């Protein structure tokens, strides 16, 4: 799905966001920027959850009126949005109202929980008995279970350990494979280096927009490669190759 904002603006109290035009294509787009730069606001404008006060939101060229279930939103701290009495019913709730039969719902929910790495014994427990990371993974799995065409994630990687991060990367990879448009805001750079597009926001505006190679100048990899005079290299393994090459040459 292609999501597009045209001269769109929203009102927050007495403050009106300057009109923005932006399209998000299938693939992974990363939105970075300091706290308070406007990432979450932009994400909300694309979400179809809040009304625009001017301009339009289009999905595949068609204007959206009201909320579209084809767009999934994963808010900051999704683990706080768990509400059902068991982990299983929470994750499966995203499939309600879609006219699926019980067997299909059970099958899809089980697959989502297995992918999220939640121990089978915990499926019938309260979501609040899970650890922080498990809760986050369960909430994300639930938000994506209905296979949306666009996914907007607001800092889903905050506070996640290595294992939960791999779950997230795997999930994003499978969303990309099936042509989903994924927009993710983050402070970390790990996901950005493999993204299709990286945007940087400052004070409510997108100030940089391009491929990871063009935009990422501040990651550990980019800083080290630049200091060593190797130009800007944003991928870890590539940097290791280049450093090794150079050191062999020096020997």
């Amino acid at each position, binding site marked *: 799905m292609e999501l597009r904002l045209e001269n769109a603006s929203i009102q927050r109290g007495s403050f009106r966001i300057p009109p923005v035009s932006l399209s998000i294509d299938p693939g992974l787009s990363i939105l970075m920027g300091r*706290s308070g730069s406007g990432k979450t606001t932009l994400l909300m404008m694309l979400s179809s959850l809040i009304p625009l006060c001017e301009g339009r939101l289009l999905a595949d060229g068609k204007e959206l009126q009201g909320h579209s279930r084809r767009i999934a939103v994963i808010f900051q*701290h999704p683990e706080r949005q768990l509400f059902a009495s068991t982990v299983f019913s929470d994750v499966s709730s995203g499939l309600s109202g879609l006219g699926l039969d019980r067997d299909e719902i059970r099958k899809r929910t089980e697959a989502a929980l297995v992918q999220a790495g939640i121990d089978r014994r915990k499926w019938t427990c309260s979501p609040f008995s899970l650890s922080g990371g498990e809760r986050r993974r369960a909430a994300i799995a639930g938000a994506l279970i209905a296979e949306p065409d666009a996914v907007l994630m607001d800092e889903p990687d*905050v506070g996640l*350990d290595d294992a939960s991060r791999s779950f997230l990367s795997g999930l994003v990879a499978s969303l990309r494979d099936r042509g989903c448009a994924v927009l993710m805001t983050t402070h970390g750079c790990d996901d950005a280096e493999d993204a299709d597009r990286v945007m940087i926001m400052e004070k409510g505006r997108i100030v940089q927009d391009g491929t990871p190679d063009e935009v990422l100048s501040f990651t550990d990899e980019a800083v080290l490669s630049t200091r*060593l005079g190797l130009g800007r290299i944003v991928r*870890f*393994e590539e940097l290791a190759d280049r450093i090794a090459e150079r*050191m062999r040459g020096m020997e």
Partner: protein
Amino acid sequence: MLSITADDVSFSYGMEDVLSHVSFSIIGPGKTVILGANGSGKSTLMKLIDGLYPLRRGRIEVNGLSVSDSNAIPAIRASVGIVFQDPDSQFVSPVLEEDTAFGPENLGLDREEVERRVSRSLELTGLSAFRLRVPQTLSGGEKERAQLSGVLALSPEVLIFDEAFSMLDSISRREVMGIVNPMRKDHLLVFITHDAEEAVDADTVIIMDKGRIIASENPRDTLSRSDLLRSASIRPPFAVRMRDALKKRGIDVGSPLTMEELEAALWN
């Protein structure tokens, strides 16, 4: 003496132990980092240290006082300040100076002393100009500093940071760390985190995995053991990962822990 000691501590919420046979001893002042993946038991440990959860098995002492002694709890809480993740959910007042005053007021201090502490805390965190602001309208980094002000106003000797800065961007994080780091000279600072990068300048690093302590040494000995870190679902620091990647390519750069050390090794 500033200290936290745990002796054979186990804890469970239900059937399964989230902490099993945990023992360690941290002597201050200085900086200790408790490093562990999500669900390793590190937050539970912190709550036991502050007496927020009842301790049933084992023994924990803070500055020589046992957390199992209900008479000692007020003294322990007065000496331990905790900075949690997500300041938004913890503001109690619509005005920053009132929010900062909340803690000392509840210690029953007189008005002048409360005012003195509020002014000093806000000055330390660089928020004096914001004292009449609504806390929720501050930026992410400022909110974190606002929360820190409230904790500092309690004059704790021990400060525990529970994944406190993981929401911050790298610039805001550096700002807050610039305020916190110098305090290690006369406070016992304990950082609970899954980010190994935060541990490179610690005096002691305690690594937790599935409710157990798997290492407790200085950062140079623990953080350079990437197999150990990875077995606990912790990503080694950048310099250590690069060292491993170069070793695989037949190049030995020693054991750098920080970006500066790595760079120096690569130039030599």
